[in-house]
C-alpha cells in the first residue's frame, strides 16, 4: 500500500466538501464509554460543525469524530492531536465520538474506504485533519475579528479562545453562531501551522482512551447491554466446508435458560438467557457434522501444494536488470526456500456481534475495522437498504486484521433472522481460533548470486501463497499479482542491480485467508533479512558492515541501521550462548532497524533478552505511541516467530485455545528500547512495522549463537538442541 499513498488534492477537496454537508442538527447515537460520551443531544442544532470531524458547542466543549477505529494502536489520540494542533484547543478537554459508517465523509484517502488497516490512518488523515482543524480555527478567528471590527490577521487562537492584538478575547463557545454563518473556506487554501510552531505534534501525549480502560468502563462490542437481550453460543463445522448433519434440539431446549436452537448450513446457535445456558445448550445438542469435501486435508497437503506452485512461473512484481543472466555469471550462488505457517489473529476480545433485526431495519453493535463494508454486506444479505442497517461501532479489543472481515457479523445476522429481539452472539475462544480467517501459509524460493566482491549481483525471489487482495479488494488484484504478498520483497532497501520478483497464487482448499498485522511485509522482511545475513556470513563479513555496504542509495535506512547498532552495543561481548542479530526494513512509509540479544539454551530453548529498535517514520505525532507500538508490535511478531502455527488435520484446525496457540507471557518478555530519529519527512505508518522487523533479528541472533539457520517458522527448538 505504501506505493499508493499520494492523496490528490481533488480527494482532499472531495472529502472536506462532503464533510461540509454534515449539519449540526444530526444526532448520532453511538455507543461510547461514559467519560467519552458528549452531551450531544443537548447540543444538537446549536453547535459549530464546519466539517464532519469537529463540533464545538455553546459551552465551548469540543467533540472530535474519529474516522478510524481504536484497536490499541493509539489512533484516537494521534488523530485528536492532529486536529487539536490546528484547531488550537486543549487536548485533555476534547471529547471523542466513533464515526458512523459513511465513506463520503470518513473514507481513508489511502484505502478509499472507511477502513482502518495497513498502517494508513495517520498517513491518510494527516493533511485532511490538519485542514479540518485549520478551517475551523480560521472561521472562529474570522468571526471574532468581524465582531471586533479588526483584520483577522491581527488575531490569534490559543486553547479554545480567540485573542486580538490588545486585551480582548472570546472563547470558541461564544463564537459558534457567528462562525457557522460564515462561508467555509477551501481547505486547500487555509494556512496550516509551520512544524516549528507545533505544540502538540511531536510531544509525548497521554492516551485519551486510558482512563476508561483501567476501571472497567470502556465499552467494547462484547459489552453492549440493552433490554430484552438474549445470548447465543455457536458451533461452526469443525472441518472447513462441512455442514450440520444432526442436532438434538430437544436436549438443548431442556437446559434451563435455553430459548431456541437455530440451525443454519454450517453452524448451530443456541439462544438463551445468558451465555452459560447457551453454552450448556450447545453441548447438550450433541451436534453431528458432515465433514464435507475437505475431510482428509492435512498440513502436508497444504505445503505440498505450495511447493508445487512455487515451481511454476508467476506474475512479475518487479524486474530490473537481467537477474537470470547475472545469476549465470555469479561467483557464488545460493538457492534457498522458506516456509511460513498459517497464523490466527487471536485478539483478546473474541469475535462477537449483537444484532437486532426488525422487519424494516437491522441494528448492529460490534467493533469493526471496516464499518462501511460491513454495512453494505449486511444490506446485501438482508435485502434492506443500506441506510436501514444501523451500525454502532465500538472500541476494539484487538483487531490485527481479523476485524477487517465481516464473516462473523454475517453469521450473526443469519442467526438473528430466526430470533425475535436483540441477540448477542459470542464466539468461544475455540471457535475464534478454529474459524479465524488465517494469515496465509507461504512457500518462497530464492536464488541469489554474488559477484567477486561479495555483493549481490542477482536476486530472484518467487512467492507462493494465497491472495488476500484477490478476495478482499479484487480491483487491486491485477494480472495475477498480489501487491501485498510481495510487499517488502519487491523493493528491499539494498542495492540490488539485477532483481526479479514473482508471485504465484496458490489457494488452499477451503481455508479462508485474511490480512494479519504486518501483512506481506512480515514474511518478506523475515526472508530478505535472513538471506542477507546468510550472504554476510558466506563472505565472512560482519552483518552490520555488510548491510552498510549495500545501502549507498538509502540514507534513511543506513541511519536507522547505524543507530540500532550503536545503541545495542553491537560488537561488544555477551555471555556464552548469547548473541546479537540485526534486521532492517523499509515499509509502511518508514524505516526501522532492530537488534535482538538472544540466548539459546543447550536444550534448544530460545530466550530473547533485549530488543533495541531504531525508528525513522518521518514526522512523529506522539512519540510515546511509537514506543508503545514498538513494545507491543515486536511482542506480537515474536509470539508468531516462536510459537505461531495453525495446522490442519482431517480438514480441521488442530489448535483450540491459548494452551496450543500460545501467546508470549510476561516471564518471556524481553527488555525493549526504542530510539526515534528526528525527521521532517512525511509521517509513516506504524501500527504494523514493529511486528515485521523482529523475527529476522531473532533468527539472525540464533544463527550467530549456534550457526544454525532458521528458514521455517515457527522456530523449532528441536533443531537448535546442542
Amino acid at each position, binding site marked *: 500500500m505504501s506505493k499508493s499513498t499520494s492523496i490528490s488534492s481533488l480527494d482532499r477537496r472531495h472529502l472536506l466538501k462532503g464533510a461540509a454537508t454534515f449539519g449540526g442538527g444530526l444526532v448520532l447515537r453511538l455507543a461510547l464509554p461514559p467519560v467519552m460520551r458528549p452531551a450531544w443531544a443537548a447540543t444538537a442544532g446549536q453547535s459549530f460543525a464546519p466539517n464532519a470531524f469537529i463540533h464545538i458547542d455553546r459551552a465551548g466543549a469540543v467533540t472530535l469524530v474519529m474516522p478510524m477505529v481504536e484497536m490499541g494502536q493509539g489512533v484516537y489520540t494521534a488523530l485528536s492531536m492532529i486536529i487539536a494542533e490546528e484547531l488550537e484547543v486543549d487536548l485533555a478537554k476534547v471529547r471523542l465520538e466513533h464515526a458512523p459508517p459513511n465513506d463520503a465523509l470518513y473514507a481513508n484517502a489511502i484505502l478509499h474506504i472507511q477502513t482502518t488497516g495497513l498502517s494508513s490512518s495517520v498517513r491518510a488523515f494527516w493533511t485532511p485533519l490538519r485542514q479540518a482543524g485549520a478551517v475551523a480555527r480560521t472561521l472562529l478567528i474570522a468571526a471574532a475579528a468581524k465582531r471586533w471590527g479588526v483584520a483577522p490577521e491581527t488575531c490569534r487562537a490559543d486553547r479554545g479562545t480567540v485573542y486580538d492584538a490588545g486585551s480582548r478575547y472570546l472563547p470558541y463557545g461564544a463564537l459558534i453562531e457567528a462562525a457557522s454563518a460564515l462561508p467555509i473556506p477551501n481547505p486547500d487554501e487555509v494556512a496550516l501551522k509551520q512544524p516549528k510552531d507545533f505544540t502538540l505534534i511531536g510531544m509525548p501525549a497521554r492516551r485519551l482512551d*486510558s482512563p476508561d480502560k*483501567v476501571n*472497567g468502563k470502556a465499552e467494547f462490542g462484547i*459489552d453492549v447491554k440493552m433490554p430484552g437481550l438474549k445470548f447465543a453460543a455457536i458451533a461452526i463445522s469443525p472441518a472447513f466446508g462441512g455442514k450440520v448433519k444432526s442436532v438434538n434440539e430437544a436436549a438443548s431446549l431442556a437446559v434451563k435458560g435455553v430459548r431456541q436452537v437455530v440451525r443454519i448450513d454450517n453452524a448451530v446457535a443456541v439462544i438463551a438467557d445468558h451465555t452459560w445456558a447457551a453454552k450448556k445448550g450447545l453441548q447438550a445438542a450433541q451436534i453431528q457434522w458432515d465433514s464435507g469435501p475437505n475431510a482428509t486435508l492435512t498440513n502436508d497437503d497444504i505445503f505440498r501444494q505450495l511447493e508445487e506452485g512455487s515451481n511454476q512461473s508467476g506474475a512479475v512484481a518487479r524486474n530490473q536488470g537481467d537477474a537470470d543472466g547475472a545469476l549465470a555469471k555469479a561467483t557464488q550462488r545460493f538457492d534457498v526456500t522458506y516456509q511460513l505457517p498459517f497464523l490466527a489473529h487471536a485478539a483478546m476480545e473474541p469475535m462477537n456481534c449483537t444484532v437486532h433485526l426488525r422487519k424494516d431495519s437491522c441494528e448492529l453493535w460490534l467493533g469493526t475495522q471496516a464499518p462501511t463494508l460491513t454495512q453494505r454486506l449486511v444490506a446485501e444479505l438482508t435485502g434492506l437498504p443500506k441506510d436501514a442497517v444501523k451500525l454502532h461501532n465500538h472500541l476494539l*479489543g484487538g*483487531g490485527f486484521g481479523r476485524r477487517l472481515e465481516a464473516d462473523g457479523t454475517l453469521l450473526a445476522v443469519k442467526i438473528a433472522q430466526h430470533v425475535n429481539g436483540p441477540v448477542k452472539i459470542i464466539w468461544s475462544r475455540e471457535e475464534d481460533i478454529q474459524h479465524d480467517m488465517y494469515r496465509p501459509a507461504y512457500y518462497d524460493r530464492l536464488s541469489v548470486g554474488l559477484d567477486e566482491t561479495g555483493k549481490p549481483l542477482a536476486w530472484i525471489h518467487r512467492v507462493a501463497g494465497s491472495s488476500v487482495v484477490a478476495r478482499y479488494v479484487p480491483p487491486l488484484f491485477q494480472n495475477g499479482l498480489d501487491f501485498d504478498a510481495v510487499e517488502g520483497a519487491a523493493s528491499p532497501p539494498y542495492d540490488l542491480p539485477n532483481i526479479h520478483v514473482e508471485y504465484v497464487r496458490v489457494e488452499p482448499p477451503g481455508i479462508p485467508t485474511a490480512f494479519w498485522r504486518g501483512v506481506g511485509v512480515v514474511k518478506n522482511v523475515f526472508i530478505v533479512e535472513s538471506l542477507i545475513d546468510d550472504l554476510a556470513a558466506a563472505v565472512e563479513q560482519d552483518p552490520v558492515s555488510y548491510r552498510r555496504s549495500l545501502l549507498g542509495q538509502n540514507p534513511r535506512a543506513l541511519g536507522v541501521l547505524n543507530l540500532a547498532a550503536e545503541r545495542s552495543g553491537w560488537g561488544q561481548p555477551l555471555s556464552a550462548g548469547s548473541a546479537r542479530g540485526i534486521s532492517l526494513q523499509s515499509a509502511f512509509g518508514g524505516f526501522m532497524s532492530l537488534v535482538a540479544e538472544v540466548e539459546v539454551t543447550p536444550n534448544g530453548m530460545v530466550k530473547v533478552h533485549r530488543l533495541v529498535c531504531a525508528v525513522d517514520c518521518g514526522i512523529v505525532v506522539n512519540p510515546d505511541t511509537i514506543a508503545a507500538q514498538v513494545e507491543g508490535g515486536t511482542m506480537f511478531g515474536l*509470539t508468531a516467530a516462536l510459537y505461531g502455527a495453525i495446522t490442519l488435520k482431517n480438514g480441521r484446525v488442530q489448535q483450540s485455545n491459548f494452551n496450543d496457540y500460545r501467546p508470549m*507471557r510476561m516471564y518471556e518478555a524481553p527488555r525493549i528500547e526504542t530510539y526515534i530519529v528526528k525527521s521532517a519527512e512525511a509521517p509513516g505508518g506504524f501500527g504494523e512495522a514493529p511486528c515485521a522487523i523482529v523475527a529476522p533479528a531473532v533468527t539472525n541472533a540464533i544463527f550467530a549463537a549456534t550457526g544454525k539457520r532458521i528458514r521455517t517458522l515457527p522456530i523449532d527448538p528441536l533443531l537448535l538442541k546442542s
Partner: protein
Amino acid sequence: MATTIKINGVNRTVDVDGDTPLLWVLRDVLGMTGTKFGCGIALCGACTVHIERTPRRSCITPISSIGHGAVTTIEAIGATQQGKALQKAWLDLDVVQCGYCQSGQIMSAAALLMTNPNPSDADVDAVMSGNVCRCGTYQRIRAAIHKAAAREREDV
C-alpha cells in the same frame, strides 16, 4: 436456583444453575461488563476478580462455590489502596493499548500487592504470567506495578 452473592459490598440475588461461572453472572445477568471473557478455561486471566482478596478466574468459578466470600471486581478495585495506586500508575505510564485484558491485569496486580507490597521482577513475572496481553504491554505492566508499589511504600 436463587443464589445470593456479595459483589463490591452489595448482596445480589440471581436465579441461575449453581454451575454457572461467576463471569457470566457478572456480565450477562448483572450487566457488570468490566470483567472480560477471553478464553473460558483459565488460560488468559482476562476474567480475574477477587474473592476475599484472592485472585480468581471467574470463568471457571461456579457461583455455587462462592458462598459468603466477598467478590470484588474491576468496577470497585479503585476503592482499595492497591487498586487506586495501580490505576494511577497505569495512567502515568500509559500502559493500555486495546485495553481489553487490562481489567484482569489490574485485578491480578492488585492481588499481588495485597500479599506482597514490594515484589521483585521475578515475583511480578510469576503472578502476572497468567494474564495474557496480545497487544504486548508486558514491559509497561511490570513497570507500573513497581511504580504503584513504590508509591505505596512512600505513603506508609
